[in-house]
């Protein structure tokens, strides 16, 4: 039970116990801040439970070099985070970063991908972007049993994958193990805001802190205005198919097919604008299976044992949103659709900024003020 008084005062309150909130809470607690993590419960949409599990760089940030840098930074931070979590919790997050490929079906896709990667490299500037467009025999040596429809691959050394569920579990265990306070079934019922002074009502109690971080995924859209923030996010549905376990066959992940440590092949993905509908459709499943089998014809011989859908948390331009409230300094928001990929920067770079009370200048392009065109003009 929650007792009134000092027990309900914290240095920081994080709203949202998914991958984004848990990574930030873990980082804040590690920085020495007494942190409370409020988790809504199983009525929430729980995007983190449906994640595909890529730690992915090569498809991120065209036209947004700051996002490319942030994503690359997270891929760099990931090994440190994974080692630290394993040491602290004994949980292996299943991180592998052997590089990864995007499979191009047909010449047109291959040419478009080549243009895309070249533009991404130009935009990377001094950061640089190592990649290769790989054709035919060489591609077939890299991946077993590629189908005849595969024209080629784009490859970068930065890509990888991990287990979203073990990551989530490790972040929670690491957070509570470091002394953090986890409060489940704690949907926010009310909030009172003043600069560096927040009261959050949840789970039948009131909690106070000079910092609050909104990491409630799709829930942020409604929460943010109460804190003088804006997070105009919408749901975008993705479906995933999972095969029976097989002996390890894939040496690296691809954008839409990856093999887990346990041997399952995960097949993705769809991008559907259907509001808050968590249903699954034969059309999307057929599209996903078709693309997987054209990429790797031997997948057709495997049984599908599970399938699910989840809702991505999408901003209008598909990029993350990070902000501190101007009206109520100390209130931050964090939103993205890449909770696995960005766990490294969320725990190791964003959390220290929030602890210090200020987002660094490199974060300015992620502000939701970018959507406020009329005000800016």
């Amino acid at each position, binding site marked *: 039970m929650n007792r009134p008084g000092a027990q309900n005062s914290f240095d920081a309150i994080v709203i949202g116990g998914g991958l984004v909130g848990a990574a930030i809470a873990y980082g804040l607690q590690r920085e020495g801040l007494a942190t409370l993590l409020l988790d809504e419960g199983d009525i929430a949409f729980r995007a983190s439970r449906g994640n595909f599990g890529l730690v992915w760089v090569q498809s991120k940030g065209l036209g947004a070099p700051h996002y490319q840098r942030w994503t690359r930074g997270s891929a760099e931070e990931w090994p440190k985070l994974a080692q630290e979590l394993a040491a602290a919790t004994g949980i292996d997050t299943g991180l592998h970063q052997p590089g990864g490929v995007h499979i191009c079906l047909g010449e047109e896709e291959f040419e478009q991908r080549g243009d895309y990667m070249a533009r991404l490299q130009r935009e990377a500037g001094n950061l640089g972007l190592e990649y290769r467009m790989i054709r035919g025999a060489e591609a077939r040596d890299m991946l077993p049993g590629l189908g*005849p429809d595969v024209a080629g691959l784009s490859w970068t050394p930065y890509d990888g994958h991990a287990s979203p569920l073990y990551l989530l579990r490790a972040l929670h265990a690491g957070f509570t193990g470091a002394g953090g306070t986890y409060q489940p079934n704690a949907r926010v019922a009310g909030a009172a805001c003043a600069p560096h002074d927040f009261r959050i009502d949840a789970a039948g109690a009131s909690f106070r802190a000079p910092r609050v971080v909104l990491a409630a995924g799709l829930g942020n859209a409604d929460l943010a205005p109460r804190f003088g923030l804006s997070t105009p996010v919408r749901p975008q549905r993705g479906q995933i198919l999972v095969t029976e*376990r*097989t*002996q390890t066959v894939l040496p690296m992940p691809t954008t839409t097919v990856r093999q887990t440590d346990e041997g399952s092949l995960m097949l993705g993905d769809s991008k559907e604008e259907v509001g808050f509908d968590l249903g699954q459709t034969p059309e999307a499943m057929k599209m996903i299976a078709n693309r997987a089998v054209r990429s790797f014809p*031997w997948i057709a011989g495997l049984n599908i044992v599970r399938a699910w859908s989840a809702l991505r948390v999408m901003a209008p331009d598909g990029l993350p949103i990070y902000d501190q409230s101007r009206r109520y300094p100390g209130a931050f928001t964090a939103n993205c659709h890449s909770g696995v990929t960005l766990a490294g920067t969320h725990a190791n770079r964003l959390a220290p900024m929030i602890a210090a009370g200020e987002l660094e200048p490199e974060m300015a392009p992620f502000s939701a003020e970018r959507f406020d065109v009329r005000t800016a003009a």
Partner: protein
Amino acid sequence: MFAQRPEIRPATVEVLVAGQPVRVPEGATAAAAVLLAGLPAIRDTPVTGSPRLPYCMMGICFDCLAEIDGVANRQSCTVAVHPGMRIEPQRGARLAFREENAAHGA
């Protein structure tokens, strides 16, 4: 360890369990043939290599997984026998892909 009931229908269907001929009644399951064959195990689990035999006989426990007529990971307790059926042990996780498949499929 396992024997057919005395009133059983005549064992008229011959199948091969790990290459060994076994006769079972028409309509019997592949898992029944596995038990009658007296093998120590029909599969090894993928993670620990633990040996398993058919257990629940009703499609729930998956301990009876076998490679039946060349198809891996089949629940043998849900598959009816036919003459000449080949039931092979499932060793660990199934193979997803064999190099020679590529040549045949091309």
